[in-house]
């Protein structure tokens, strides 16, 4: 369980997140949707510790990520996997080395066990034969899947995805969505997905938060979003403009 309590964040005096409170349960994808510039990525960066909020708490199973010391934060970070918008694969490493990177850095497993785990993760994202390729040699969709494989290489409890469908065609986008749903359910992890893709939200959003101008304007399930869009103007505009 991941909880955010009273989170505020500003840059150079300009507040971009206002009193964010949210809970994300494990086992089903949690989506944060909203237009560009609404504060989604800032919220995600606060959640994973790339930005420090001015006030508020981020609780990973009760452990306050914001106020822990470096070593305690490091422990939580090893439970976190993240899929970046641009995938952030290491250019100088092969696909297999990218997936094995967190294992090499943090696990004490033998080289053979590590290789097995890397192969397992690559098979899990249907990239069994791509281990020897470099990121520059594979497609955007494959890069996203390698990013997912790297994220799950360690036994993670939390998966964060920043615009997992950006730059992908509808079919590949669907494949990535399904993969994220399957992995979330299979490992019982808490998955938080940032997206402005309404189709994706309607397909996989078990729980959806609508962020507008740094504030949560609506929260609910995908089934209730169209009804809510008729009542909340900004949400209605977002739904209509992104469909």
């Amino acid at each position, binding site marked *: 369980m991941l909880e955010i309590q009273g989170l505020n964040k500003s840059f150079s005096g300009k507040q971009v997140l206002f009193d964010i409170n949210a809970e994300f349960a494990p086992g089903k994808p949690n989506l944060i949707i909203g237009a560009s510039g609404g504060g989604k990525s800032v919220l995600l960066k606060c959640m*994973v*510790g*790339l930005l420090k909020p001015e006030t508020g708490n981020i609780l990973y199973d009760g452990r306050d990520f914001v106020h822990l010391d470096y070593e305690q*934060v*490091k*422990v939580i*970070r*090893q439970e*976190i996997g*993240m899929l*970046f*918008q*641009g995938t*952030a*694969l*290491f*250019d100088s490493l092969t696909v297999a080395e990218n997936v094995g*990177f*967190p294992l090499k*850095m*943090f696990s004490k497993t033998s080289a053979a066990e590590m290789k097995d785990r890397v192969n397992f993760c690559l098979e899990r994202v249907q990239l069994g034969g791509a281990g020897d390729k470099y990121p520059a040699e594979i497609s955007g969709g494959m890069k996203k899947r390698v990013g997912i494989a790297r994220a799950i290489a360690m036994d993670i409890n939390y998966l964060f995805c920043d615009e997992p469908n950006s730059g992908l065609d509808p079919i590949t986008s669907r494949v990535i969505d399904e993969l994220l749903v399957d992995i979330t359910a299979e490992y019982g992890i808490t998955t938080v997905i940032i997206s402005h893709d309404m189709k994706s939200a309607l397909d996989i959003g078990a729980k959806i938060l609508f962020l507008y101008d740094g504030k949560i304007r609506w929260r609910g399930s995908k089934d209730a979003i169209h009804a809510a869009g008729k009542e909340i103007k900004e949400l209605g505009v977002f739904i209509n403009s992104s469909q």
Partner: protein
Amino acid sequence: MNNIGVGSLPIVAIISIFVGAVTTVQTAFQLVSPLIPVKVIGTIVSDSSLLELAPTITCLVLAGKVGANIASEVGNMRVTEQIDALEVMGINSSGYLGLPKIIAGLIMIPCLIIFANALLISGGILAAQLTGIMPPSEFIQGARDTFTFFTLTVSMTKAIVFALVITSISTYEGYFADGGALEVGEAGTRAVTRSCIFILFFDFVIAKIMLNA
């Protein structure tokens, strides 16, 4: 280490040979008095090479080659979120990226300076012989007459300090690059110009401290 060391060998070799040759020809041009023995040219060229030409000119060139390379590599990692990925994994990204480069520089750049020293003097000997200024034996005699290990110590001190300057400034500029391709390019330019300025500044400081009579 391969990038910094082996990758820089050709450019260091070319520059060292030519600078050694030019220094010999120009020194011979200035020493026209029949009262000064010709082997003094060897003394001047070898001492100049060890004290100034090899460490400073080589490191100014390396600031351009290695410094820009490091800054653009690290800067590219910054703008493509690879550094963020390291941080999310719980890895100290500045240490993980910076330390190996600094250590590689501290090992390889002094080796390149030793190589440059040898080639500068060889270039001088070659130029002296090809232009008929003096035979190699006389050049070598002149170089050996005044050689002390202290000159080599000054050369190596400069090499170590300049290596630290090039690698740390370049990593810093790349690490704090922000934006896109344009900013990565600007970080590379800043890395080179700042490295060059600091190399010249520390060149003066080391000379003042170690050679001040």
